[in-house]
């Protein structure tokens, strides 16, 4: 057998292996979703297939269940935005300042930021209950969206990890000092220099925060607030099929949202990198400079 044949065989085996892995992964994700869809259209007792639950969702159901769902979804989306904004506004400047000015505190910041990971949500919520009693009676009101403050704690470890990776990847000290020496204020440095250079990290922090907030149940349930998950749970108690349909939509919606975000970022990255090829081809510089790349 010639060498090329062996190579071709190996390539084909590798291709097959890749498709098998991809197939298994897809199966792992798709089976629950297909089951969910199946559940939403098949009446459990009789096994009859109908689209009543979906019709109820899109055809306008006057039972008020969907009002609750709409409220939960709206609350969750608002809270997702609030959580993202607050956690980034809190953590990014803190981490930058600690890295630049007082690196001795970086361990403490890391510890505090990662702490929520080790505390179960149920335990957290027990501590948060009296605080929310004060918040809802004395400071703000009992609106669900104030739960975003608690969600900030919840997403802290993930936001920290993302930003930490992003900040490690750039020469923070030199970049800020350069900008300072040219006259940039700290605000300008943050907005014009640091944020653009850790954008990928910020996006990944946003992804995980949004996903976490949209999927949060424990806090909202135990503090008797209405978010997407508690609404779904409530509907499930009365009509499991509609709940399944909504879950599917929520899942799909989140996925589409994240994929869109990813695409937008990807396109912008690509646009930024694109000049590389034609320039590299036209390398010899008409200057007395060294032309060889280091």
């Amino acid at each position: 057998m010639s060498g090329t044949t062996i190579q071709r065989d190996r390539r084909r085996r590798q291709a097959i292996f890749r498709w098998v892995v991809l197939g298994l992964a897809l199966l792992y994700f798709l089976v629950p979703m297909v089951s969910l869809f199946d559940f939403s259209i098949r009446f459990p007792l009789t096994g009859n297939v109908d689209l009543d639950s979906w019709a109820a969702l899109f055809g306008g159901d006057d039972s008020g269940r969907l009002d609750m769902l709409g409220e939960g979804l709206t609350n969750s989306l608002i809270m997702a935005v609030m959580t993202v904004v607050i956690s980034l506004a809190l953590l990014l400047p803190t981490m930058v300042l600690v890295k630049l000015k007082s690196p001795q505190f970086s361990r403490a910041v890391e510890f505090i930021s990662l702490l929520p990971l080790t505390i179960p949500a149920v335990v957290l919520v027990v501590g948060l209950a009296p605080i929310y009693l004060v918040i809802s009676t004395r400071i703000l009101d009992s609106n669900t969206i104030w739960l975003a403050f608690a969600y900030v704690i919840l997403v802290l470890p993930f936001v920290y990890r993302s930003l930490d990776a992003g900040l490690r990847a750039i020469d923070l000290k030199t970049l800020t000092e350069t900008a300072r020496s040219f006259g940039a204020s700290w605000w300008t440095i943050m907005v014009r220099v640091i944020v653009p250079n850790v954008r990928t990290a910020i996006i990944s922090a946003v992804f995980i925060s949004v996903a976490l907030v949209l999927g949060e149940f424990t806090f909202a349930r135990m503090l008797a607030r209405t978010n997407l998950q508690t609404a779904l749970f409530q509907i499930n108690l009365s009509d499991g099929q509609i709940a399944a349909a909504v879950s599917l939509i929520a899942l799909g919606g989140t996925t589409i949202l994240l994929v869109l975000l990813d695409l937008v970022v990807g396109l912008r990255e690509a646009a930024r990198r694109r000049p590389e090829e034609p320039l590299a081809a036209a390398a010899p510089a008409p200057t007395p400079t060294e032309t060889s790349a280091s």
Partner: protein
Amino acid sequence: MTLSRSAVPVSMAHLSRAFGSVRALDDFSLDLAPGEMVCLLGPSGCGKTTALRALSGLEDIDAGSITVDGVEVSGVPANKRDMAMVFQSYSLFPHMTVADNISFALELRKVPRAERTRILEESLELVGLGAHGNRYAHQLSGGQQQRVALARALAVRPQVLLLDEPLSALDAKVRVQLRDEIRRIQSEIGITALFVTHDQEEALAIADRVGVMQEGRLEQIGTPEEIYTAPRSGFVADFIGVTNRLAGRAASGVADVLGQRVPLLDGSADGDVAVLVRPENIELEPDAAGSAEVVVVGFLGAHSRVQLRLQDGTLVSAQVPVSEAHALTVGGRVALRLRPVPALAV
């Protein structure tokens, strides 16, 4: 040239800065004349970078005064001082093109938009990178990145140009090229500049005056030639170039070394001393009865570096023209003659 403006004097007086128990600057004083390029040179940890950062405002000082063009700036934050810096590590903003990097700096300095394009082109031309405006830092070689950093620093027409080991990340050939270019541009524009390096060859080649630092203090400052030929201390003599320490006896400005008389520089010690003799001030003559043995002959291009062993075992380094080195053989004996060039005894 529009990039130039009238150069200003800079004065740093009695600066102190301590990091814990380490005194990075210890009563450090340095004056720069308008348009002068001064190099601070010293081993790592000698405080040279702290001095530069103190001038830039990136480092606070505990005591002392800094004036630029007669104006006290020591209380002024870095972003309000009219200086620009080229760093050792590549400092181009990675998310911006070369042109955007320079425009951003100009924008920060509140240069009107209409002027930015012209200054941008001019400063890129100055460093020979006119065609590279739309590239990103990662598409440039290290040398090119530092050229852009230099162009960016000059574009804002600062009062003072600060260079913090800008060449030390580059390979040898690019380093020499860019070094000469920095010197050319600096004198062309006539800007006051402070250059920090640990590379003595670089310092001697580029500076109007070289300041040798040790433990937070300026050990000696003078023209490169003064520093090299008339070091004021053993530290400076050792740090700059290669120096032999030859045992001798000194009295009233003359030393007796290896049976020869060598005039001494001011500030030399008396009595039993070590006389610091440069390799190029030692002449060799093949002589079977000579006092030294050739250990190594190393070819350096125009010169050869010859290692000798004296009878007492001391190793001595001599530098001779290649044509003379041909006459030497390893293991052969030579007679050693010291040129009557003033040397320092310590």
